């Protein structure tokens, strides 16, 4: 029996109101599979922050999610402007989000730190002018 579930989502770069569809969808799938709620919460938060980042900074992108009995792996790939200083971007409170994004309640400089906090493993591969790929893994105990 094949125990791997693969899901793929396109993130629309213009639409703030639709950001969160991938995370809500993955959350639903994990719930159906009987994954523990704490694990689902970690995946959902990490993925939503990633989606929001793709909308704010990269005009959208593609999210691939792989669910196995042991882990959930999320690969978020965009062709945005890239992250010049990853270390700085990882600091809580550091944000380059525009003002209109802040007025919606985002841009607190917590996106990447939250993604790191809620995933068990996170890797950022970014090239300025080319794009960013973030890979996050959450283990299912």
């Amino acid at each position, binding site marked *: 029996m094949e125990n791997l579930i693969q899901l793929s989502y396109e993130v629309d770069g213009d639409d703030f109101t639709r950001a*969160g569809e991938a*995370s*809500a969808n993955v959350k639903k799938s994990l719930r159906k599979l009987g994954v523990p*709620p704490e694990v689902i*919460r970690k995946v*959902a*938060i990490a993925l939503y*922050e990633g989606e929001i980042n793709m909308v704010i900074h990269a005009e959208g992108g593609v999210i691939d999610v792989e669910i196995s009995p042991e882990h959930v792996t999320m690969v978020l790939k965009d062709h945005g402007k890239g992250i010049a200083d990853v270390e700085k971007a990882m600091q809580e409170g550091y944000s380059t989000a525009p003002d209109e994004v802040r007025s919606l*309640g985002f841009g607190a400089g*917590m996106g990447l730190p939250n993604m790191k906090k809620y995933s068990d493993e996170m890797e950022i591969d970014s090239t300025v002018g080319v794009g960013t790929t973030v890979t996050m893994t959450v283990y299912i105990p």
Partner: protein
Amino acid sequence: MTVLEMAKELHLEIISKGEAEVREIHGVYCCDLLSIVMGRAKADDAWITVMGNINAVAVAVLADVSCIVLSEGMGIDEESIAKAQEQDVCILKSDLPTFELSRKIAEFCAL
């Protein structure tokens, strides 16, 4: 203590009922910056905020809070209400300032 019991007792306006009858309140969390809420609110918290928009609904779903309580008389648009109903998110509303409201909820829920 369920969300519905609290809403009735504290005379909070119910904007979207969601799962108010079954969700319990185990804590109170107050903040308007969504990323901070996502990182720090706990599941089953009553989340008090002035941020009535569709992203707040998404955050409530993902952080798995028991309800959103709009304080300071703040409203929320129809599209967001529709989204909340679709996602079974309970939204309540009060004219009280955030501190007063959190104090009342905490007292009533014996937190």
